[in-house]
């Protein structure tokens, strides 16, 4: 075993922390409050070439692994940018993976370099209100019409749809009931999000308000076959390989958020004096923070193991899911304790921990709830019978 990070990884961590550190807490308070996309951060990362960290060099990227991508997003989040910062670029970092692996050369040439340079914003159009977590149950349908497809349906929780030029859209081209296997008959597109055919409605939500979450009502959206990713009917399989990386990246973001919250809590504990004595001297305040540090560190180890396994082509479902569970839990707990450490001021937005707390709550639900992680582990690792 050798747990030391490579020199590159250490460099990435430091450089990202420095760049993200230029956007201070007030910046994020304002963006979140005004529901404004963090263009300045996004542009700075685009300019620095960071959006292409996992994109192959042939398309202008760096061709690095999930380990490096997770370090990047962790540090963005840990800078205090939290989920507002991470979500602004999350999709650019690894979301194009199915396109990279299965898309046509023409499609890749047309899109990837623009994603790397930050010009092209893409949103991820998979989840639907009635499908729950079973992606095969989506009903958005793409009907073939000559060289085109015509799409109708509804999507929900589509991050960044407000800002996105294109959407990576999963559809059915064979209905669920007509498909031989339920995983067949799904088709993936990377296409323009034509506002005249797609009604985009923001969802009012508890936090992460700098990046919108949206409901999409798709009405006769016409898509050229050139925008299809890979073969018709194989879309589900193209997305499969991305599930574990997605969980690892979210885990990294949760971890960063927890560290940001902990840093704030420690700072407040040292600065806030009651009767001439910093409150950080109280055991009742110190020990929970110490425990949170230990839990974050422990969760990080699981994440590092998972990304290492993935980058080395080894199975990592167990580790990726466990990492998501541990990081989301430890991140939320750190945020919760940071609020508690601040006493009444923790409830005000001005100390920022309430923002972290609201964001951290999301990570126990998305992209997969903690309970679904347990279901996965029970069925796939422990071999317990399937249950609902």
């Amino acid at each position, binding site marked *: *075993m050798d747990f030391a990070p*490579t020199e590159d*990884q250490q460099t990435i961590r430091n450089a990202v922390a420095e760049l993200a550190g230029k956007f201070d807490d007030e910046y994020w308070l304002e963006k979140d409050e005004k529901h404004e996309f963090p263009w300045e951060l996004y542009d700075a990362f685009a300019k620095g070439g960071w959006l292409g960290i996992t994109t192959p060099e042939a398309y202008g990227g760096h061709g690095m692994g999930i380990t490096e991508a997770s370090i990047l997003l962790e540090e963005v989040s840990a800078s205090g940018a939290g989920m507002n910062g991470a979500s602004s670029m999350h999709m650019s970092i690894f979301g194009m993976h199915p396109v990279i692996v299965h898309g046509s050369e023409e499609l890749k040439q047309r899109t990837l370099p623009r994603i790397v340079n930050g010009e092209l914003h893409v949103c991820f159009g998979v989840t639907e209100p009635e499908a729950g977590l079973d992606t095969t149950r989506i009903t958005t349908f793409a009907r073939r019409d000559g060289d085109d497809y015509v799409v109708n349906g509804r999507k929900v929780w589509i991050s960044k749809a407000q800002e996105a030029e294109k959407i990576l859209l999963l559809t059915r081209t064979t209905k669920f009931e007509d498909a031989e296997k339920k995983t067949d008959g799904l088709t993936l597109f990377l296409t323009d999000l034509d506002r005249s055919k797609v009604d985009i409605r923001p969802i009012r939500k508890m936090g992460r308000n700098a990046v919108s979450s949206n409901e999409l009502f798709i009405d006769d959206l016409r898509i050229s076959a050139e925008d299809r990713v890979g073969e018709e009917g194989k879309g589900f399989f193209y997305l499969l390989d991305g599930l574990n990386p997605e969980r690892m990246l979210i885990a990294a973001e949760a971890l960063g958020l927890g560290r940001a919250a902990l840093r704030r809590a420690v700072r407040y504990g040292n600065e806030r004096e009651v009767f001439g004595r910093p409150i950080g*001297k109280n055991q009742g305040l110190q020990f929970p923070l110490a425990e949170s540090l230990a839990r974050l560190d*422990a969760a990080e180890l699981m994440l590092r193991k998972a990304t290492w396994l993935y980058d080395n082509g080894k199975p990592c479902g167990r580790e990726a899911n466990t990492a998501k569970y541990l990081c989301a839990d430890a991140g939320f707990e750190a945020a919760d304790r940071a609020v508690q450490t601040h006493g009444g001021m923790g409830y005000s937005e001005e100390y920022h921990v309430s923002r972290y707390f609201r964001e951290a709550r999301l990570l126990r639900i998305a992209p997969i709830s903690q309970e679904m992680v347990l279901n996965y582990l029970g069925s796939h690792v*422990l071999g317990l019978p399937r249950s609902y």
Partner: protein
Amino acid sequence: MRWELSDEQELLCSTFRSWLERAMPAAELRALFDAGDPTAFENALVGEGWTSVGFPEDWGGQGGGLVELALLAEQLGRHGAPSAAWLSSAIAAPALAGSRDVVSRVLEGSEAACLVVPGDHVIDGGSGGVRADGTALSGAVTSVVSADRARHLVVPAVGAKGLRLFHVDVHADGVQVRRRTLLDRTRGVADVTFVGAAASELNCDAGEALRDAALRAAVLVAADTLGGIDRMLELAVEYSKQRKQFGVSIGSFQAVKHAASSMLVQAEAARSIVYYAAASVDQGHEDRVLHAATAKAQVTPAGVEAADTALTMHGAIGYTWEHDLHLFYKRAKLNEHLFGGSAEWNERIASALPLLAAG
């Protein structure tokens, strides 16, 4: 980076594991638990050379380091084996490295070593209360892990030159060892009293040796718990697949499934922390205190939680004396406090936060 055991380490694990299963089947283990005499097991461990794994060859060891010791500890915990003597030797041996003769007898022979410190606190020379008058020791230390199984006592004592470590033969005049019964009968503690006992001063930096011993103890106890969690998970999953209610195995109930999966999460988390902390302490990483503290403070309470979950999954059958689960349960409970509970270790973690000292 490489987040996997080497082939050699994998082989060590599997060999030791099957040896344990052969050398000490469950029935024998239970009998031993009732009788309370681990001599036969300890002799077998020595006889097969397991006590010298994880130590440099020039001490009489077979090579390897704390990671290998952690792998052994994990398997011992997994098996519920009476490993107190082994554990004490693994913690105390480095302090004896300067006395080649003694250390090789500890590693190769059946003469266990033991650091004479209270077993319920983080190892720390100040807590003992033994005084050195020249090389004659006097004082008492309570709840010393495995003192009743050891030949070679490593004793922190304060004399004219300050804190030093001394070697005392347990058979020397003026040494008295009184065993105490614990809930966990697979490991024992004893109170040790010195009345002018003859000692020889060890040639090492006492403070450094004790700090190192504290971290080794943290890692090895955490590893022991890791093995226990693994085993309890196995027992619980097996039981939940067999046991039926309303005509289906209870493992298909979501509440049972979530309970088992939570244990798996704990096991996986424990595994990554334990190996990491072992490597960190072994390599003298600058953050090794934080890593070892994290292992101890996170893994051993998780072991207790896992034991609770396993008991709940088993229902009352888990409480009966004839079922093995209670062995692991009690072991997990003891590990939680052995060589310092979470509160003590969390204090050390707090000092890694840039917070002011607690008052």
